[in-house]
């Protein structure tokens, strides 16, 4: 069905999407917690900044990442000096672009799931002798877990579909940064690439559909007060 080259593209996309979600999860959870439970000045501003990648043209986000992670950028210079690495033209860079672009979606889903946890249950747990950490680990986290997973699955699908920021930030390098959408774009430019476009597009739609169904199923469990852990 798929040629070795096409399998490589699918594998790379899954690697980039999966790693992006692993890295995004702690960041997104922290931000979602702050936005759901925190009371501090500048909360509206933080909320706005988190959501920026959702509304700013992806090319602009990619360019901003280039400024940050480029050889002269603050993070790029630091990475080069201390670790001797660069994320430009590498799959790690594609992962960063995918993670940043998916962040608003993931934060939003996790935030909603934290807000949906009945705080009266947390109060009940405290009167039963549970300190804040035990309440978090045994009540809050299990109750919001389906929502967190739903957000991650949705973010994963978004990561696999990421195009604009990735191509601007780390270019379109076959085998390294050319994930499904970028490979489809290249194939479209190539005479005789039609068949490959069809196959890769089919894989993209299939993966997205699976992710959407899984995410919806998890969100429903959440809504019914069920649990997945």
């Amino acid at each position, binding site marked *: 069905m798929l040629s070795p080259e096409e399998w490589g593209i699918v594998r790379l996309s899954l690697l980039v999407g999966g790693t992006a979600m692993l890295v995004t999860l702690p960041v997104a959870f922290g931000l979602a917690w702050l936005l759901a439970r925190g009371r501090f000045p500048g909360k509206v501003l933080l909320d706005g900044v988190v959501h920026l990648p959702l509304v700013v043209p992806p090319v602009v986000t990619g360019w901003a990442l280039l400024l940050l992670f480029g050889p002269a950028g603050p993070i790029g210079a630091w990475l080069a000096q201390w670790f001797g690495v660069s994320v430009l033209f590498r799959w790690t860079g594609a992962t960063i672009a995918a993670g940043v672009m998916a962040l608003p979606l993931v934060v939003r889903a996790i935030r909603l799931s934290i807000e949906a946890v009945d705080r*009266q249950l947390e109060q*009940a747990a*405290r*009167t*039963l*002798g549970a300190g804040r950490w035990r309440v978090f680990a045994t009540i809050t986290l299990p*109750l919001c877990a389906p929502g967190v997973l739903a957000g991650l699955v949705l973010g994963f699908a978004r990561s696999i579909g990421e195009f604009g920021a990735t191509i601007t930030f780390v270019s379109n390098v076959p085998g390294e940064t050319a994930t499904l959408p970028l490979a489809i774009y290249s194939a479209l430019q190539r005479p005789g690439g039609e068949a490959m476009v069809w196959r890769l597009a089919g894989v993209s739609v299939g993966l997205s559909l699976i992710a959407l169904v899984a995410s919806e199923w998890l969100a429903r469990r959440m809504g019914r007060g069920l649990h997945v852990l």
Partner: protein
Amino acid sequence: MSFDVSLSVRRGESRIAASFVTGPGATVLFGPSGIGKTSILQMVAGLLKPEAGHVWIAGETLFDAATQVDVPPERRRIGYVFQEARLFPHRRVAANLRYGMRPGAGDWDGVIAMLGIGHLLDRWPRTLSGGEARRVAIGRALLSDPRVLLLDEPLSSLDRARRGDILDALMSVRDRTGIPILMVTHDPDEAERIATAIVRL
């Protein structure tokens, strides 16, 4: 003295205040709905911070505005049965009951027999009737080995037969465990039947 409580807090436009000293047995806070009885229980439990006053229970200071003592709820050892059962939906009944138990404390068999909830242990909370959930909530509070028991309208939204069951259970808690009870109700019959002392608000 079981309870020596004097509290006040502002809630919106009105001020909620209460002051009472009572001995062992069941103390009933009695008064019309909306007067802030639940807020008083929450302040005793440490879930709502009073602006002034003190909470002394069984000779121990749990809150004192004058000396800035404010013991967090998890260290007050107060069993609180809320108006809604507030069972943890992701844990079966047995796991709910065990949640507050400490090693070597809590009379598991005794509490389960007294409340008649042995047949519910494997059920999920969402499958329980109102009366069953209420009894499990009382059991969960008792098994956390509390110094005192707070009950917020324990008979509300139950039919007549269920009310009788729960009332009997509460009276056996009062007479058999010797744990002082502080209970809130707006129903005079209920207050009369269970109270050792009544505080009118």
